[in-house]
């Protein structure tokens, strides 16, 4: 039987506010346990939440960027359950009336087609703390630094049909929240993670199959692995005459498999009800208009612009606009390189990206910043150095040996473009290789490469290759 996979994702993205969603405590990552939890985060008796207005602005930005409705009135609700790292015994979330609903996002498939994924809703909520099971000898430590960190939970429609599509969608959301500046998207620190709802059904069947929910997946690779494993597991089960149990599962990245966590029967009844400590969030048209005006250029628009402004290919523009940081880097570099679009694109996608990958660095931590790269590319453009030597200069710049001009100067890499100097060297080379000259003139024109190589060798690669070619032909053919 042919099966169809149906996937919906719930992406939890941490909003990049300075303070928590309902308290003034800092959200900085990595502090000593329980040093960034105030009375409100600890859920002390008598404390009350006060909404951080910044999260409303951020959620509205996301809503507008995904063609969603930003609700004029949304309501915080309590999701009640007991867990040691949930200080109040309830999480403040949004339930019936989320701040964002009914939107969509277009993703690009591998075959170049575009697909629209519906966004059911995006709601604001607070994160819980962290339970630390290791290192306490049979006890559990609790760190409440993360408690009260603002999250935007983005729920997709079950429009996704493969693990690859799920990854493409997740990457697009990841890129979007970073473009909007509403999240740092740091997956190692848990700022961007997802739950995947997965089911399969016989191809052509309308009704959905029974789904399972894979919780807390924190990398693109794991999303793909987890979904693929789960799809295969469900198909095997069904083809063996079994049934899929609706349950929550965990992905084990070491074993590449999902494991049952709890079944529907064991599931909590969260007893949602509107939080009486918080007023409904009201958003008016003037507020939305001000946000609409302040939205940055997003990836699709920027891609189109890079193609038209710099003559880039769709493919290159797509790579460069996949993240806001990369696109910003490219545009700064291209400005410093006097608008040499194609050359800059090649370098950013080629040399720079390779070096970043090799040293496992983020672009914001690149030792060669955009202006520095641009000034190097300028030297290729103006003929000071060849592209080949530029790579050598780039490596030196990467190691912190100086600016492009300093390194070119120090290492004496300046290109020889003086025709009489090159002619002199050519004459020398021809004089030393009379046999080859003879053969060339007898018709073995391929030998031109040999002569170019000899000239370049004699100049340690500094001769302008184009000039060498021209002058060689002139002298040999005369």
């Amino acid at each position, binding site marked *: 039987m042919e099966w169809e996979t149906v996937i919906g994702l719930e992406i939890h993205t941490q909003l990049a506010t300075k303070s928590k969603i309902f308290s003034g405590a800092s959200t900085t990552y990595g502090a000593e346990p329980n040093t960034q939890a105030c*009375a409100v985060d*600890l*859920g*002390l*008796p*008598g*404390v*009350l*939440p*006060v*909404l951080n207005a910044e999260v409303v602005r951020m959620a509205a930005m996301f809503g507008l960027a995904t063609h969603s409705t930003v609700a004029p009135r949304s309501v915080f609700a*309590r999701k*009640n359950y*007991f867990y*040691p790292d949930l*200080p*109040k*015994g*309830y999480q403040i979330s949004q339930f019936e009336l989320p701040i964002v609903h009914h939107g969509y996002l277009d993703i690009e498939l591998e075959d170049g087609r575009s697909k629209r994924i519906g966004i059911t809703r995006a709601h604001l909520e607070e994160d819980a703390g962290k339970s630390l099971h290791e290192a306490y000898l049979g006890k559990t430590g*609790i760190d409440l630094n993360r408690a009260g960190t603002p999250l935007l939970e983005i729920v997709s429609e079950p429009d996704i049909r493969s693990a690859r599509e799920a990854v493409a969608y997740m990457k697009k959301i990841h890129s979007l929240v970073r473009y909007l500046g509403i999240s740092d998207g740091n997956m190692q620190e848990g700022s961007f993670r997802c739950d995947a709802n997965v089911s399969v059904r016989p191809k052509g069947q309308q009704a959905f199959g029974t789904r399972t929910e894979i919780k807390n997946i924190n990398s693109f690779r794991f999303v793909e692995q987890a979904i693929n494993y789960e799809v295969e597991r469900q198909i095997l089960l069904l083809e063996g005459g079994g049934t899929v149990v609706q349950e929550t599962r965990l992905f084990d990245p070491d074993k590449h498999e999902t494991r049952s966590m709890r079944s529907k029967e064991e599931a909590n*009844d969260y*007893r*949602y*009800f509107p939080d*009486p*400590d*918080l*007023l409904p969030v009201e958003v008016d048209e003037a507020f939305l208009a001000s946000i609409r005006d302040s939205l940055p250029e997003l990836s699709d628009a920027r891609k189109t612009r890079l193609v038209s402004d710099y003559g880039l290919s769709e493919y290159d523009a797509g790579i460069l606009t996949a993240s806001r940081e990369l696109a910003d880097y490219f545009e700064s570099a291209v400005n410093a390189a006097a608008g040499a679009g194609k050359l800059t694109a090649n370098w950013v996608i080629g040399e720079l990206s390779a070096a970043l990958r090799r040293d496992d660095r983020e672009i914001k931590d690149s030792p060669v910043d955009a202006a520095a790269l641009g000034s190097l590319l300028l030297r290729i453009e103006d003929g000071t150095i060849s592209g080949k030597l530029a790579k050598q200069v780039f490596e030196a710049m990467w190691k912190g040996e100086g600016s492009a001009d300093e390194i070119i100067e120090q290492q004496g890499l300046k290109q020889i473009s003086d025709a009489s100097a090159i002619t002199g060297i050519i004459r020398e080379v021809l004089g030393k290789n009379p046999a080859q000259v003879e053969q060339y003139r007898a018709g073995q024109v391929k030998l031109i490469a040999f002569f170019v190589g000899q000239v370049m060798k004699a100049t340690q690669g500094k001769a302008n290759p184009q000039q060498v070619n021209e002058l060689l032909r002139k002298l040999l053919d005369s």
Partner: protein
Amino acid sequence: MYQKSLVELAADLQKGAYSSEELTRACLQRIHTHDERLNSFVTVTETQALTAAQAADAAIKAGTAGPLTGIPFAHKDIFCTNGVKTSCGSRMLDNFIAPYDATVTQKLLAAGAVMVGKTNMDEFAMGSSNETSFYGPVRNPWDETTVPGGSSGGSAAAVAARLVPVSTGTDTGGSIRQPAALCGVTGLKPTYGRVSRYGMIAFASSLDQGGPFARSAEDAAVLLGAMAGFDARDSTSVDRPVDDYVAQLNQPLQGLKIGLPKEYFGAGLDTAVGDAIAVAIEEFRKLGATVTEITLPNTHLSVPAYYVVAPAECSSNLSRFDGVRFGHRAANAQDLQDLYTRSRGEGFGSEVKRRILVGTYALSAGYYDAYYLKAQQVRHLIRDDFLQAFAQVDVIMGPTAPSVAFKLGEKADDPVSMYLSDIYTISVNLAGLPAISIPAGFSNGLPIGLQVIGNYFAEARLLNIGHRYQQVSDWHTRSPQGFE
């Protein structure tokens, strides 16, 4: 000096008749002498009180004193007080030293008032007789075999017995007004949002409101003036200037339109109470008021709606008491479930458990619409009843409670009968309105309270009405025997 009102005490302090330290010592002495019988205090903060009194004396000398500077008072043990046990009448918080001050605590501290202790209360403010306290019941100073009312029973009894001139309380369904009535003192429940709830341990967040207990409306006006005000830390607090309650006390009552809801004078009302209220209403007529009968047709729905909303909210509010971070923690827990079950099982008393169970049920999947949502709709009906009434009249009057103080133990095993003792007070909380209870007579030596309900933010009018009535009556000046 213990028979003097807050206003008189403040004047004496101001002119140096005695110091705040002397006054505070006298107060502490009276608590020491009499409270063993009443059990109105959970904690007496002698050392802090004397330090505060000395600071107050310095402020008086420096000429920076306000109307509350140096005045001893007690906080209901529901307001967090930095460094002082804040038990909420529960074993669960018997070991809880609050690490911060409630907004009300801060405000009274800033006003120079001298806290002498924390008063006993029904556990987590759930009760109408002060019998659910982990620290044992409070006794009514008018008859120690009867209850003081609840949940702010300690605060009411302490003022009635003249242990302190004023105290704070909280009112979720009548917890200020009903004990004020049963103890013969003045108690005011402000408009929802008038007094900050920050640091006031939550029972039912959409109903809870702090307010003053005093011997007179005038004293209550001074205390409320210091308690009220917008607080950015409480999202439900209302950003609106606080009226000058004292300045408006003497407004004439000529032309005041009083409404008497027929639903408040029907079956279930003790005859003696009804008669006393009728006499008091007559007094208002003499003061120039007009009286009309009105109707609040949905009154009968208020107790059922309240006993869905309040338990629902409390079931969630009390989830934080899990033995993990503060409060009672069961010994030798085997696992997490055991820790939760036993910490909560041991820490909470039976009335609290009953309400958590009821509330959990009301919020459960499949029952939410039938109970919680329906109860919220009923709240709208009740509020609309009041708004229609206030289109015709200025204030609504009636009995605060259906009877005078009942015997200790009389209703302890009959929750429904206990719940009905708040029948006249509950709808006020559901609507978020302000109301005051003032002494209006006695039956068999036990006090009777008159409730005056006002429109939103009409606290000044309520205090004015109470004050004018207290100019022509002396119920509020009477004090129980045996506390000399």
